């Protein structure tokens, strides 16, 4: 089973293209985990998370500065090289300074003519959603709901269908099943006698962003069955939390490196997928309202709240720590990621004061060299904790 997840992660382009051909359906890529996947799904389109690659950069320098997130630069380079040409649409949200500019970059790097009526493109190739930075407080739900209505309208024109509440509710059920399964899965990672390595867990979770959710749900059911029978890992390692960004099939090597150094990632604060935020969609509400609420529940480092004495990211990380008996936290932060870097010094202080948990900060420059360098620092960190 794990082989199937692994294959989707490492052969994603081929698998997605095959799926597209076989099913004669469209595929939309999205850049950030807050993108309302559910609406894309309800439109009958496969939503897939866009990721970078370890191949050398070749075209992006002509358009994008060096002083930008290397992970996003890599994704854009793939776009510029035509690797993502199989996509029928691209969704970008305002989830950081570079993400909000990707609408432009994508159009310039991977131009796509779409038919227009009276000069108006009815269903644009690249769609931008103004995701609020402040995820709580007056007016925010109405605002995002309107953004989603507009987005939904684009999808309806693309697919020539109406995405009514029934369609949305069916999608909500499928997604809730996914969230439920992932929560069940996560419980295994809390056990003292670990049965799943961090890397395996990552691939299980990450593959759900690349394949149809229905299929992932089906695979998960059998996988969870297998897991219940499985023997614990021979070498459990030091229990660590991984906090970071730009983690995909390439940089997830950090999990392997941590394992080689005697650690084991048992929980994450890595964005990547909404399932990490452990929230279900409220299926007793109007489905669009429920999706809005669900997406506003993503506490990534870009988000802020209406709290007058804010410490919401630490509060969120506390929840992730809960029941995990974490012995150390590794921050693996994309180079130039201001949102993550700016919250680090306070989180470090808070983790030390409240839990006496040590932290290690590593820059993720999205390169093989960077990962190699991380090795010795992780080794020293784990040695330090193990005394």
């Amino acid at each position, binding site marked *: 089973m794990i082989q199937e997840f692994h294959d989707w992660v490492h052969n994603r382009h081929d698998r997605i293209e095959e799926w597209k051909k076989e099913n004669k359906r469209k595929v939309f890529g999205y850049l950030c985990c807050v993108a309302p996947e559910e609406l894309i799904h309800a439109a009958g389109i496969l939503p897939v998370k866009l990721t970078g690659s370890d191949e050398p950069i070749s075209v992006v*320098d*002509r*358009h*994008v*500065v060096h*002083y*930008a997130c290397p992970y996003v630069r890599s994704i854009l380079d793939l776009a510029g090289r035509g690797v993502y040409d199989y996509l029928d649409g691209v969704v970008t949200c*305002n989830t*950081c*300074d*570079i993400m*909000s*500019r990707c*609408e*432009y970059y994508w*159009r*310039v790097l991977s131009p796509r003519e779409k038919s*227009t009526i009276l*000069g*108006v*493109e*009815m*269903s*644009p*190739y*690249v769609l*931008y959603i*103004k995701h*609020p*930075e*402040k995820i709580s*407080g*007056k*007016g*925010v739900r*109405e*605002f995002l709901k*309107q*953004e989603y209505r*507009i987005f939904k*309208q*684009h999808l309806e*024109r693309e697919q020539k269908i109406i995405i009514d509440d029934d369609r949305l509710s069916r999608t909500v059920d499928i997604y809730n099943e996914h969230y439920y399964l992932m929560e069940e899965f996560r419980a295994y990672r809390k056990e003292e006698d670990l049965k799943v390595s961090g890397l395996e867990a990552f691939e299980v979770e990450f593959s759900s962003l690349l394949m149809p959710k229905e299929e992932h749900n089906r695979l998960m059911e059998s996988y969870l069955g297998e897991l219940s029978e499985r023997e614990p890992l021979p070498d459990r390692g030091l229990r660590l939390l991984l906090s970071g960004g730009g983690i995909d099939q390439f940089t997830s090597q950090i999990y392997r490196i941590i394992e080689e150094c005697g650690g084991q990632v048992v929980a994450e604060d890595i964005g990547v997928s909404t399932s990490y935020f452990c929230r279900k969609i409220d299926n007793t509400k109007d489905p669009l309202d429920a999706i809005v609420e669900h997406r506003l529940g993503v506490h990534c*480092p870009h988000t*802020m709240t*209406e709290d*007058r*004495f*804010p*410490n919401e990211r630490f509060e969120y990380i506390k929840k992730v720590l809960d029941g995990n008996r974490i012995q150390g936290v590794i921050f693996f932060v994309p180079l*130039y990621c*201001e*949102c993550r*870097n*700016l919250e*680090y*010094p*306070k989180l*470090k202080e808070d983790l030390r004061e409240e839990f006496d948990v040590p932290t290690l*900060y590593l820059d993720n420059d999205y390169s093989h060299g960077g990962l190699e360098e991380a090795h010795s620092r992780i080794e020293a960190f784990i040695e330090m904790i193990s005394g």
Partner: protein
Amino acid sequence: MEDKRVKTAPSKKSVNTAREVWPYVKEDYASAHRAKAEGKPVVWSCAIIPKEVFWALDVYPVFPEHFGVISGMMRRGGTKDESVEKEAVRFSRLAEAAGFASYLCGYARASIGNTLTGNLADAPLGGLPKPDMIITTSFVCDLRGKWLRYLAQKHNVPFYILDIPERGCDLPLTMPGLRSAFLPFYEKIKRGERDIFFSLPADHELDYTQTQWEECIRFIEDVTGHKYNQDRFNEVMDISYRTNEIRLEILELRKAVPAPMGVADGLACMYPGTYTMGTKRCYEFYVRLRDEVKERVENGIGTIPNERFRLLWYGLAPWFNMSLFNYFEKFGGVFVYEPIYNLVPFPPRMPENPVRELAIRTLQQSGGMIAPTTIGQAVSTLVNAAREYKCSGIVTFYLITCRPVVYPTVEIARVLEEDFGIPAVPIECDLIDERTYSEAQTLARFDAFAERLLKMEPVFA
């Protein structure tokens, strides 16, 4: 980061009114401290937030960004001894030691480092008085939200963030596809059509922004006990409106050949409008400035005697070494215009609903040229500016520590050069941390650029 001292100097101003700015700044810092001593609530805020609400609610605003500027210009104790590092460098080291990356904006590192010393007053002009609250915005850069939140946590004061929709481009989204039909923007400008800087925002954007302002007012009321008064607010909004009109007149006058007021003057004169807009003092400053610039135009007085080429400046300022803005003068080159800090027209006054008016203005600026969110918009703004100000070259500030400023630089340079024949040269560093600056590299590039421009026919003569 490498430890080195670089040769830096302030710029030479041409316009007399620009010399009033430094005393104006000093007076502001002094009066902020007086206000604090008298018990007036002090708010730490940011440059991009319109200030009218603060004046109307009688709180005193001060600005960590501007604190960064003066730390980049001054050394400890006000010494001119070049062997002493600038205060921005001292503070940045402290912030970096606490875990803040050296790729963060120098403004943030400077104010964080200053806070971490535990002695705010050991800083240029006595530093900023301790805050009673902190108000920032999500708009322009990610950094200002998280940076000011950290300062609020450290000073343990209430915090408010004004969330402004980051408009992907400046066209209303109410009609599906409308936006993409207009891309790429510069296609229109290439045909000689003027691009639209801003348009009326969509209703939900406006409603949300208005709510954010109303909540901001409520926040200040709660923290201070002061009450919002619409008449008082309208008075302040009136002054702002009139001030902006004068500032727009100045921008028009600055198009003249020879350039009556260059970028060195422009960047000095941004202070009153950026930080004290809505006050009578600010209004009067720009009236004096307008009168002087007008007189210079009428008498044909330029920044330099024989203009041979005119330059556009893109980006914020390397405050630690403003003399760079005079560098091209020896070649007959003059920096004529900088879009940054210069506002677009304000929406008409709406005295019956001034908060709505402020929301419209905030959103128009967010789509305007002051801080373009989209690259396409930045490019079109610069193309229009080159045309209007008759510039034959552009110097782009490859501001390595400011994402919104650095992102468009490559595209601006590429499009201006390839599509319009306007060459560009970059200068690469932080805005106040002089450790990031290489004089040899910068001046070699500038020299080669000047040679090239001198051989070229002006593009927009």
